[in-house]
Structure formats: structure tokens, C-alpha cells
């Protein structure tokens, strides 16, 4: 069984720490249990079930650290992995940026675990995929998709008395539905902690509708357009921006947060006033662990307020250099939105382009965060508040920083990827060429 209870994990970690002779010892225990189904051409292609558990030990003498992992848990193996980490530490060069382990911390109890998701079986997955396939087969379309779920835990302990434990579940689903002629394609993707929120039938119907609706796309000229980005499309682009909130790279002049003449944009208005970004591990829609891998508590943090950069993330080392408190980054980024639905945003648009998702996004210039990529699986022209016709896919060249300065309206946030992101209406979004790909 790869999923240990808090007490079971604690017992193993205590035993491992007990074997340590190093100045400092940090131990982590991770386990996961889950499965997946992949399908294409309306038939299952592969299916699997995977269960794993692993122990990692980091031992430090002075500023010399060695690390080792193992996936065997008898006493002899536990002693062996500790010994190996200590041997490696003795061989390692000193790390001038070594930070001693944290002492005991207080963590909020996370809400990442859902019992029903944890109880998923191969039959549950097959049934969910069956619903998706019923949509494409009935409609005479072709589906290719992937369904995956996992239950996982992680626990950490160190020789200074810190201990933390978290257990969570995930279920994710994505499907691409294409028409038989290969002239139309639609896509959906969703992830939740709670299985009850996942409706593969309804999601597949959306993908099928987009597959039919996107057939016969017309070409329109590249240029600057008002776009309505569905949450997945917005997330695709904005997710690339968050690593720039790292204080060290900003201080070092290596990020879009670095300022001409030195310093950073912390405290400055960098985005439109209607942009508010925060992270909160306790958010019920997108819960995440309340501690970092080294045991720092993760709390609600405002990163952008009314367009002003309120915080940058500080590692423990960099915080010590700058004489500030460490501030960990969170995996659950939340962009505040409004109450409007995607349909409301479309209705309020005189002329614009609706984007389902983007594809193959790559950085072109780290200085401006300029990104390039393409629209995919459903791009539509909007006129007088209505979708008029499907259009051919575009390549874009745009920066999320520029984009968040051109926000006209934000809708109701939806969980997508690792964020809670609203649909966005953005003016002057730059498309540079057309693609014939469907």
C-alpha cells in the first residue's frame, strides 16, 4: 500500500532520523497510487495502474550535504540509505548557500484529500471513458483522450523536530474530438480533487460541439484583435509569468521584474487596475499543500493588487541575504474575476476572437516575457455579441505582462491547470500569422 497514514509515515521517518549521525538530517517520504486510461480513434489504446513509495534522505556535515533515495523500507535498507547520504555528504564540496533545517512549524490542515477520488478503480475509469466515447460515437466523430487519477501523500521530518504530512487526491481528464473529415476539432481539459465534480459526458459534449462548430474555418488577416480567452487559453499564457515573481532573479537583473538602473518592480503598478492575483492553499476550488518541501508554511499571499506588484517570492537563502522573511511561492495561483460568464463576455463584444486554447507556447524573449504559440481546437470570430463563424488558427506573439495591461473584462474564475483563472477579454492581442492546422 503506497498511501501511509500520518502516524505510519511519522514512525518510518522517526526511525530514519534515529539512524542519522550527521549534523543535520532531513527526510521525506512520498507515495502515490493511481491509474490512467488513454484512448484514440474511439478505442482504448492503453491503460495502467501504478503504485509507488519512496524515501529521500539529506544529510549534512557543516555545509557539506549528501542525498540518497530508496524504495525499500526494511530496517537494513533504511540504515543503508542514511549511510549512503552521509558518505556522499563527506565527499561533497561545501555549499556556501546551505541553510540549516527549520525547527518545528505550525501548518494548517489542508483540504486536498477526497475519499471518493481515492476509491477510484479501473472500472470507474472505464465507465467515465465510456461516457466520453458514447458522445463521439453517437455524433459520428473521433475522440482521443486521457483520464488519470491519483492519491498521494508526502511527509517530511528533520533532526530539528520539524514534521509535516499531507494527503491529496487528483483526477484529470482531457479529450480532443475531431470530425471524420479532419476539418474540425474541439478540446476540453479539467482537473479536480473531487471526483464528483468531473463530468466526462458533459465535457465531451462541449468538445464535440466545438469539433462540429469549428469545421469550415475561414481565414482572416493576422493583426491586433480583441480576444476572449477561455480560462484554459488564459492559463496557458499566464502560467509562464509566475516564475518571474522570484525575488532573486529580479534582484539579479534577470527577469521581467528587474528594473532599468537596478532594483525591481516590487510596489509598482505593472498591470491594469482590475488585475488581482493571489495564492491560497486553503481555497476550496484549488486546494494545495500547506507546506513547502523544506517545511515552510504556505499561507494566503497577495501577489498583485489592483495591478500593483505586492510581493515577490524569497527563498530562505535569498531572504537571509536581503534581511526579509522567506516567502514561498504557491502552486495554486488565483486570478480574481467578476461574475460574468463566458457567454456574457461574448455578448458584450462588438468584434473579437474567441480562443479555446493555445498550443506550443515558447518564450521568445525573457526580458519582455514575449511568448509565441498558436490557437488550437476551436477559434471563432465574434461580431455584435455573437459567434459568427469559425476561423483558421493563428500564431500569436504576445507577452502576458502586456496582455494584463490590456484587460477589458474578466469573467468568473474556473479551475484550470494549476490555477483558478477567469475568462478574459483582452484588447490589442497580437496575432502574427495564420496556420492551416486543424
Amino acid at each position, binding site marked *: 500500500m503506497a498511501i501511509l497514514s500520518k502516524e505510519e509515515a511519522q514512525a518510518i521517518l522517526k526511525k530514519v532520523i534515529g539512524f542519522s549521525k550527521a549534523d543535520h538530517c*532531513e527526510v*521525506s517520504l512520498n*507515495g*502515490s497510487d493511481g491509474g*490512467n486510461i488513454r484512448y*484514440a*480513434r474511439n*478505442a482504448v*489504446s*492503453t*491503460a*495502467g495502474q501504478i503504485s*509507488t513509495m*519512496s524515501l*529521500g534522505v*539529506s544529510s549534512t556535515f557543516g555545509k557539506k550535504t549528501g*542525498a540518497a*533515495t*530508496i*524504495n525499500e523500507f526494511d530496517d537494513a535498507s533504511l540504515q543503508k540509505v542514511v549511510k549512503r547520504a552521509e558518505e*556522499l555528504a563527506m*565527499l*561533497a564540496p561545501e*555549499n*556556501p548557500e546551505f541553510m540549516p533545517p527549520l525547527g518545528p512549524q505550525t501548518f494548517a490542515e489542508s483540504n486536498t484529500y477526497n475519499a471518493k477520488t481515492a476509491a477510484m478503480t*479501473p472500472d470507474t475509469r*472505464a465507465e467515465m471513458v465510456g461516457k466520453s466515447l458514447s458522445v463521439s460515437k453517437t455524433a459520428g466523430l473521433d475522440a*482521443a*483522450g*486521457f483520464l488519470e487519477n491519483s492519491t498521494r501523500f508526502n511527509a*517530511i521530518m528533520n533532526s530539528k523536530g520539524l514534521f509535516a504530512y499531507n494527503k491529496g487526491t487528483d483526477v484529470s481528464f*482531457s*479529450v480532443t474530438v475531431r470530425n471524420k473529415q479532419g476539418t474540425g476539432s474541439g*478540446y476540453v481539459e479539467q482537473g479536480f480533487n473531487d471526483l464528483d465534480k468531473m463530468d466526462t459526458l458533459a465535457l465531451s459534449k462541449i468538445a464535440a460541439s466545438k469539433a462540429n462548430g469549428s469545421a469550415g474555418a475561414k481565414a482572416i488577416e493576422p493583426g491586433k484583435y480583441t480576444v476572449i480567452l477561455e480560462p484554459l487559453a488564459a492559463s496557458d499564457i499566464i502560467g509562464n509569468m509566475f516564475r518571474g515573481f522570484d525575488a532573486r532573479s529580479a534582484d*539579479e*537583473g*534577470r527577469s521581467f521584474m*528587474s*528594473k532599468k*538602473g537596478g532594483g525591481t518592480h516590487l510596489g509598482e503598478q505593472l498591470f491594469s487596475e482590475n488585475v488581482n492575483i493571489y495564492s491560497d492553499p486553503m481555497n476550496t476550488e484549488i486546494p494545495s499543500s500547506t507546506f513547502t*518541501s*523544506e517545511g515552510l508554511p504556505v499561507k494566503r499571499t497577495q501577489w498583485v493588487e489592483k495591478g500593483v506588484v505586492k510581493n515577490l517570492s524569497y*527563498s530562505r537563502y535569498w531572504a537571509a541575504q536581503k534581511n526579509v522573511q522567506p516567502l514561498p511561492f504557491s502552486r495554486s495561483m488565483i486570478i480574481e474575476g467578476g461574475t460574468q460568464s463566458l457567454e456574457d463576455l461574448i455578448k458584450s463584444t462588438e468584434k473579437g476572437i474567441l480562443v479555446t486554447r493555445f*498550443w*506550443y507556447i*515558447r518564450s*521568445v524573449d525573457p*526580458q*519582455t516575457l*514575449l511568448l*509565441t*504559440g*498558436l490557437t*488550437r481546437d476551436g477559434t471563432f470570430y465574434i461580431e455584435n455579441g455573437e459567434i459568427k463563424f469559425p476561423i483558421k488558427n493563428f*500564431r500569436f*506573439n504576445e507577452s502576458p505582462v*502586456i496582455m494584463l*495591461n490590456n484587460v477589458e473584462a474578466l469573467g468568473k474564475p474556473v479551475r484550470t491547470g494549476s490555477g483558478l483563472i477567469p475568462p478574459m477579454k483582452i484588447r490589442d492581442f497580437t496575432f502574427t500569422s495564420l496556420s*492551416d*492546422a486543424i
Partner: protein
Amino acid sequence: MRRRDFLYMTGVGLGASMVPNMPAFGKIISVEESLTPVDLALKKKMADIALNAAKSKGATYADVRIGRYLNQVVATRETRVENISNSESYGLGVRVIANGSWGFAATNNMDDASIAKAAEAAVAIAKGNAKLMEEPVQLAPQKGFGEVSWKTPIEINTFEVPIADKVDLLLKVNSEAMKGGAKYISSNLFMINEQKYFASTDGSYIDQDIHRIWPTFTLTKTDAGSGKFETRNALSAPMGMGFEYLKPKDEEKIKGGPVTMYKKRYDILEDVSEAAVHVDEKLKAKPAAPGKYDLVLDPSHLFLTIHESVGHPTELDRVLGYEANYAGTSFLTLDKWESKKFNFGSKEVNIIADKLETGSLGAVGYDDEGVKCGQWDIIKDGILVNYQTIRDQAHILGLKESQGCCYADSWDSIQFQRMPNVSLAPGNAALSAADMVKNVEKGIYMFGRNSYSIDQQRYNFQFSAQLAYEIKDGKIVGMFKDAAYQANTQEFWNSCVQRCDKSDYRLGGTFSDGKGQPGQASAVSHGSATTRFNGVNVINTGRKLG
């Protein structure tokens, strides 16, 4: 540590404390352990247990892969070592056909009972999947080879080279960069040894020992006054070689152009020294004016264009729709191949698939379903003539046997269709890169990979380079910044007008080509000589914030 986790780490930087993020598989092992392979007789015994168990439960075909994957990474930054790790992942995967359907199971418990249980589980999964099957698997016949072996022809096993020597080399690289005025420098050395054993009910017992190496660095200079920063990555290629790759030889260097380039030996100290100068030039470079240019593309850049616009769209599983939900499909549909006259590119374009090329990342003797590897044409004189296939696809192309393109990145991953080395043949007439540049009136000479993006059917693309030099009237006149070319695949390859000869031929490659769900990584090389493309659309990607 599993290979894809190792590769993932290469993309996210190797800072901070490693252990809390250590992936859930594999374990750190000593160098001595890495040099002790598993006994061959024991592997055969384990393989037979799996094959017999599968057959006894009703499998009509079975194969077993016993994989021992060794990864070593040495990562440094400025004057310090960020990470050294030596890890192993060891286990067994069984794939079967039962009731006409595929099934797969894997275990890292290598006792007889666990192996048999995994084989039985694979059969049960196959029978379960058969209920959702549209048509039974058609497996191309493959003769058994008996007991055979293959090994990457290395001169120096990287795992035998002392860690201290590797650390010293990388710290020298960093020192050289800082002497050249770099404020930030990270350098890494990644090494992989795949010890793979394959057996099947066809009667093959294949033992392979595969080695790969990738030395690389990223050098950064900042200018606080202007707020600008620029970087240059190493122009090394990851290779299917041993540590001899890092023993430079003058005869393996191509000098005389604006950048020193390397063939099957790499001078990392020389490259970092030049990189420091290049970054100064990049900070002062003039913006590229948008327009049509003749592009002279060095193999260090062109390899990824080949990978994205030729390698991927000629994967038959993408053509058929198996990757539709992730990596996408392909514009090279079967009707284009069936017509035998689809004009993929100009007559200069001859693209060869090759699983045997010495020094390449994809070189193996046999693929992961026991097919002996070889070489074939994909594009012949500009015409699409073939794809890349595995055993259950061969019949679609009317082939009597597979082309040997099956690969899995781990013993617990299901093998599937992956790209062979796909390369552009060099020209037949003697021509150096310097001579090619002399005939260009308005052009750009590009080196190294930078930003790459291509659509899901591998048609519209935008690529940029580490270094872009303006060519005017046959001479290199300075460096451009913010230059990216956009084209569609067919137009681009039809604009190919000239190739340098084989003396300029070099391999580029990638350690971590992603595909599949759950995702798998594979390593593959792409060769070419310097090649010219006329009248390609270049855009300026410069933007201002605020």
C-alpha cells in the same frame, strides 16, 4: 530516479536542496554499483519466467524488457557545485497480446513470483481492453535473433570518470565565463546509461548497453544601466558517446566563420570563452528589420527545425490520430504518401531515417520490440516516400516488417512509436559554409537553438536562434537581435536551395523529446550540413513593457 524525471530536472534547473523533490522512483547508487551490470544469465531466466507465465495465461505474443537505467548529473553554478547525483532505476515490463489486444504490466520486484504475477496481470489487462477494441492488433512478423548484444561504441565510459574530474571541468567552464565578464554561469553534465534486455516469444534475447552524454552551460550578462540581460547557451550537441566527447580535437572543429563549431568532439572551454564575447555582441546587436531574407542555417540550429517539421509529422501514429489529444496529428496524411508525388520540399531535400548512425542519440542495434535497426528514406528528392513505423503499424503501409521505431523511456513505460534519427543528407558538390555565405546578398546566418514553436499538425512554425548574424553582399556585417523566421513546413523546405558537403555535416540533438500520455521522453539526433533557404519571412520579436 526515472529517466523522464531526470530529464524534467534538466529543464527546471538544479538548484536548492534536491532531496525533498526527489522523484518517487529510482535510487541514488554508488559509482561502483553503476559499473556492475546485472548477470546476463539471470536476465534470461527472469525473461523466460515472464514469457512462460504470459503464454500459460493465453497470450499469443509476449515481450519483456528488463531495464536498468543509470543517470548521473553534475550541476554547478559560478564557483559552487549545486548537485551531484548518481541514480538507478531497475525493473521489468511485460507486454502481451491476448484476445487480439495489447496489455502491459511492470514490476520492480524481481523475484520469480512477482515477475510471473506481472505477466499474468498484463494478460488480464489485454483481455479487459479487448472488450473496448475496434479491431485486433496486426503484428508484423519478426524473426527471433537468439542471444545477441549491442553496445554504443564508446571510448571512455562516463561513469568510470571520477566525479572530481567532472566537477573540475565544469568549475573551469564557470571560471572561464567569469573571466570573460559573465555575471552568471551555470554548467551541467548529464550522463545516461541504459542497460536494456529484451526477450520475446519470437525467440530473441537481446542485451544492449547504451550511453549518452550532454555537457551544457548557460552564460548570462546583465547591464543594470539599460536593464538589459542576454544569455548564450552552449553550442554542444548531446551525443550517443562516452566521455571522449569532451576530449577536444582540432580536426573535429570547424573554424573560420563567426562561431567555432564542433563535430564529434567538443571543446567546452573554448565554447564558453566565445560565448562570453557573443553575449557582449548580443547586448549591442541591432534589431532585425522584418522582411524576406535568405537564411543560412548552421546544423546547430537546423537540427531542431528538422526535428519539428520533418521528424514529427512523419511519425505514423500521429498521422493516424493516436497523438491527437496531446502532441497533435500531422499534415502529412496517408493520401499524400499514397500519391507518391507529394512535393514536401525542393529536389535538394533528401531526408533519411537512421537508427544506426555512430555518435547519434538514437543509435541502437535493436528497437524495444526486437526489430533490428536500419536506415531508410523518408523524403527522396523532395517527395514524401515513407513514414516511421512499428510492428503493429507496418501493415498500414504494406510493409512486411517494422522499421524499428519502438521505444520506451523506462522499464515501466509502454513502448510506442518514437522518432529515429532523422537527418538531411549533405550536398554532393564541394561547398563550405564560408563559400555559401559569399553568395548571399541579403541574409541571416543562424546558430544554436532558441525559441521553437510549431502547430499541432506541424505546419506553421516560428523559430529563432542563439546567434543571428546579418549577411550583406556576401559578408557577415554584424549581429541581429530579435530575429525569428516564420514559415509553413512545405514552403520552407521548398525554399531549400543549397547544402554544404559532408565535410560540414554535424549532428544536433535533443535529450528530452516529449510524447505520449502519460508523457515519455526520448533522445534523438538530427544531422545536416549548413543549408541555405531563400526568401524566408523574418519578423522582429522585440517588444517593450509599459
